[in-house]
């Protein structure tokens, strides 16, 4: 009776909740500023008013984590329902067959029609005759310049050609001035600026059908030379001053020119104040021999095949494609409308600067629309930077880049030797082996039945250890084997493309690692971190342990507690705090230096200081842990030893050298090894504080592995990196055992 009542109540509740909460939830992923603004905007509120049964949940993804989040969500079959997707990423996700073909939805749509959009935007949404997205906004770059400063050196308008750009820059630069300033900001940290120079000179990274690199052409090299000239002659800064506030720099004349996108229009007005308004303007980029070509990009809105709310998602896509909504969106986030109709809105007629962007859109080029582009782009960026800042010679470097690109482009064309079946077979083999082991166990248990008078007691321990053993086998032992097998394959992003194959390539990944500059750099960094960080950390721990070990110290427990506090704090939080401590303008570190009249340093942006900065932070965080162990070791040293030494007339230093240190040896060993193994795996520090930069100066092995594995889905390659790390840690552990044997 009671049970029935209970059931009725439950059913009633279920029925009630389904009527109250029948709002369909649409998860909408947007990146960076877009995510923050669209989430707070009236636009979505209006949409929800028009569609009361749909609730939009905006999730903001930071740009630099967007790739791995998107890729893992697609692979895990838990994608968002609607997503903002950069035009350069479209082909990759289309190739993976992750995106929903929306042709069917378009048929009845009054809003989404091909001819309503700019051609360049629409092409990025088409993949193999399928429509896999709708353009949301377009994006291009123009020249921002200080009218007044250019006039002061005799130029009444913006530079229109390369030649003029160089002349203006020369005229603007004051190498002998007391206060350093630059003619133009040309950030070297990504490939964007370099690409525009190349296009303006008629050069391309890849050939017309995107099958071979063209970076060794004379046009390309000349363009890079032209770019490098600005850096070399001090017309543009060498160091990427990430902490230089661009608005401040523009206002004070630290930069007279910079190249940027439409979102900057409002920001310059906001941060430079009203009195600054007439002093600057925008113009179409200076033309090279191929014209004033700029980059065209932007973002589309896509739906995913695995989404469960397609109908509602489509409603949102349609709504965001209305001309008036696009104009509204421009007002909020300065994203240029992708709809032609939106540009005819009276709002834009009164905005001459926005019109300049409209003009620039006529002379644009977009990066190659191929799945490998993201990887090529990140490699290229790094090499180009080394060339333009004069670290590397252009000819040899371009030859390296060329071969790297060839390799990236060739992965798709490798003929298959072994398919996915091979790996699946290995995995199945593992499970079969498990099954056989279980059978063997059961068999031996049965055999033992006669021996033991109490069968229950005999079987119990097996049942007790089963949960742990099963977890360890499934999540540790099988993965370790699988990881090794994966490292022998070319398991990569294409593996996730339906109908593709995995190839067994032997030790090729390991061979590639040997010549992979980024990997070598990450290995070097990790070892640097170890070799410098571990000894300092151990010495600091020992120092404080010795102090605390003195008999007369008051409030010993209180000190110990304080020193130990950083150990238990979350590394992510620590990294965030220290990013603030190392801030150039307002950080604690530079303030502390200023007390001693030492000029502040650019801690995390400097090639030489970034790594020591991370080490300093790690020592601060970890020394308490080792200190506690040392303290215990010190207190375990028999008092008689000290007394005997004192009677023999030994001094303080002699006692320390001959009694304390030798007695501590085992403890020191233990600590050193523990610290080493911990430091091998450092990841969060560079991930949060420097993203591995500047120029890979702080990238760690684990971080490189993470980005290879989840940013580019090079699962085979990442597994090889994991195994190298494993080997190193293994070697250290074996070394420890050997040392221990010999020290006894």
């Amino acid at each position, binding site marked *: 009776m009671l049970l029935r009542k209970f059931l009725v109540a439950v059913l009633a509740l279920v029925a009630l909740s389904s009527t109250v909460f029948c709002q369909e939830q649409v998860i909408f992923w947007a990146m960076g500023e877009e995510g923050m603004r669209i989430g707070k905007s009236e636009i979505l509120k209006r949409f929800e008013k028009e569609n009361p049964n749909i609730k939009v949940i905006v999730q903001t993804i930071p740009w630099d984590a967007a790739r791995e*989040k998107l890729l*893992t969500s697609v692979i895990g079959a838990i994608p968002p329902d609607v997503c903002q997707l950069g035009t350069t990423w479209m082909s990759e996700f289309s190739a993976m067959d992750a995106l929903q073909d929306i042709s069917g939805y378009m048929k009845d749509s009054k809003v989404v029609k091909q001819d309503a959009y700019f051609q360049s935007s629409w092409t990025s949404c088409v993949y193999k005759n399928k429509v896999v997205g709708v353009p949301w906004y377009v994006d291009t770059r123009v020249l921002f310049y200080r009218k007044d400063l250019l006039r002061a050196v005799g130029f009444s308008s913006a530079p229109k050609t390369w030649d003029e750009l160089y002349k203006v820059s020369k005229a603007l630069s004051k190498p002998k001035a007391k206060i350093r300033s630059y003619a133009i900001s040309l950030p070297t940290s990504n490939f964007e600026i370099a690409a525009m120079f190349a296009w303006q000179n008629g050069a391309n990274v890849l050939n017309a059908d995107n099958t071979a690199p063209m970076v060794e052409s004379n046009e390309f090299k000349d363009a890079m030379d032209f770019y490098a000239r600005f850096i070399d002659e001090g017309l543009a800064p060498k160091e990427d001053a990430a902490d230089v506030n661009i608005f401040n720099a523009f206002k004070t004349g630290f930069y007279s020119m910079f190249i940027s996108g439409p979102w900057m229009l409002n920001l310059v007005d906001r941060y430079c104040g009203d009195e600054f308004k007439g002093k600057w303007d925008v113009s179409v980029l200076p033309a090279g021999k191929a014209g004033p070509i700029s980059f065209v990009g932007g973002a589309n809105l896509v739906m995913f095949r695995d989404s469960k709310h397609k109908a509602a998602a489509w409603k949102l896509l349609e709504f965001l494609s209305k001309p008036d909504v696009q104009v509204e969106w421009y007002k909020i986030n300065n994203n240029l409308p992708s709809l032609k109709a939106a540009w005819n809105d009276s709002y834009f007629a009164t905005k001459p600067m926005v019109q300049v962007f409209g003009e620039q859109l006529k002379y644009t080029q977009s990066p190659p629309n191929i799945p490998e582009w993201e990887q090529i782009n990140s490699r290229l960026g790094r090499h180009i930077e080394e060339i333009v800042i004069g670290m590397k010679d252009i000819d040899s470097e371009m030859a390296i880049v060329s071969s790297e690109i060839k390799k990236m482009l060739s992965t798709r064309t490798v003929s298959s030797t072994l398919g996915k079946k091979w790996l699946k077979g290995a995995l199945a083999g593992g499970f079969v082996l498990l099954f056989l082991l279980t059978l063997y166990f059961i068999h031996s248990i049965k055999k033992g039945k006669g021996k033991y008078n109490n069968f229950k007691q005999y079987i119990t321990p097996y049942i007790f250890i089963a949960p742990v053993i099963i977890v360890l086998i499934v999540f540790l032992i099988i993965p370790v084997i699988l990881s090794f097998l994966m490292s022998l394959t070319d398991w990569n992003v294409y593996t996730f493309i339906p109908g593709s194959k995995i190839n067994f390539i032997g030790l090729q990944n390991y061979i590639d690692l040997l010549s992979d500059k980024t990997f070598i750099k990450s290995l070097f960094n990790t070892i640097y971190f170890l070799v410098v960080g571990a000894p300092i950390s151990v010495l600091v721990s020992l120092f404080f342990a010795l102090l605390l070990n003195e008999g007369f110290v008051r409030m010993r427990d209180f000190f110990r507690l304080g020193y130990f506090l950083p150990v238990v704090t979350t590394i992510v939080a620590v990294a965030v705090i220290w990013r603030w401590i190392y801030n150039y303008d307002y950080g604690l570190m530079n303030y502390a230096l200023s007390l001693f009249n030492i000029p502040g340093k650019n801690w995390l942006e400097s090639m030489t200081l970034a790594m020591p900065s991370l080490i300093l932070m790690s020592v601060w965080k970890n020394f308490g842990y080792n200190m506690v162990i040392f303290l215990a070791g010190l207190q375990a040293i028999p008092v008689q030893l000290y007394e005997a030494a004192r009677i023999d007339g030994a001094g303080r230093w002699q006692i320390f050298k001959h009694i304390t240190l030798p007695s501590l040896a085992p*403890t020191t060993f233990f600590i050193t090894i523990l610290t080493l193994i911990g430091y091998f795996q450092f990841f969060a520090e560079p991930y949060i504080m420097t993203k591995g930069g500047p120029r890979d100066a702080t990238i760690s092995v684990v971080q490189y592995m993470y980005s290879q594995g989840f940013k580019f889905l090079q699962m085979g390659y990442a597994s090889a990196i994991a195994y190298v790390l494993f080997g190193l840690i293994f070697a250290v552990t074996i070394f420890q055992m050997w040392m221990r044997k010999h020290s006894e």
Partner: protein
Amino acid sequence: MNYKFSQKIRHSLVHVFLIVGLVITMAPFVWMISTSFNTDQAIFTKVPQWIPKHPTIEQYTKLFSSINFLQHFKNSVVIAVSITFVSLFFNSLAGYAFAKYRFPGKEKLFTLLLATMMIPGQVTMMPVFLILKNLGLLNTYLGLIIPAAGGVFGVFLMKQFMLSIPNELIESARMDGCSEFRIYWQIILPLSKPVLATLGIFTFMGTWNDFLWPLIVMIREEMYTLPVALANLNGQHSTEYALLMAGAVIVIAPIVLLFLLAQKYIIQGIATSGLKE
């Protein structure tokens, strides 16, 4: 210079060093807290404000209203508590079996377990991700809880402790007709309280502070744990330091509180781990 005087100097020197060390250790925490109670504009001063001129809790309200830190807090608690209890249960069961039973294959199994301790977690990153994907556990609490449910270190610690429990207790319980599981549940576990506390605190802290696994397994924002949410905040609001510091306070506060309450266990546990080796 008489002996007494030089001793005085030494004593004060040691204390000066200790206090300077403590100031350096604590300064980042104090600065984090004071920044977090400040406004976005006011923190940009050349001279740090140790005490905000106009203290405000706006950063915290922002975290809990618009950024939904409450949800991330809940996720962290659910995951850390579940992992702690599940792994304590599993590890103590296994530890008990290894400590107090004789069975064929025991030594081999234990050696195998110890050998797996050398495997760094990163080696299994890619395959575990794929296995979780195939089990449909990505982006779920279970996806983090199950792989962490058994730990070799935990089994080892449990076994070491339980070896010291007298066999007579177990035998006499058997005489009274106690079932094997009941012996474990009503006799062994209560006697193992100290080691359970130590291991539990360590597990909880490790899980709470873990970053790499939740970063990989939790794909959607509503499932992020606090450290992942903070990293996300750091990517998204990279210059809003006051907000970031408030986030850091929220992530750190529970674990620091736990540490202060349980410091005895923690410091003892660490001190002995270094000596027993």
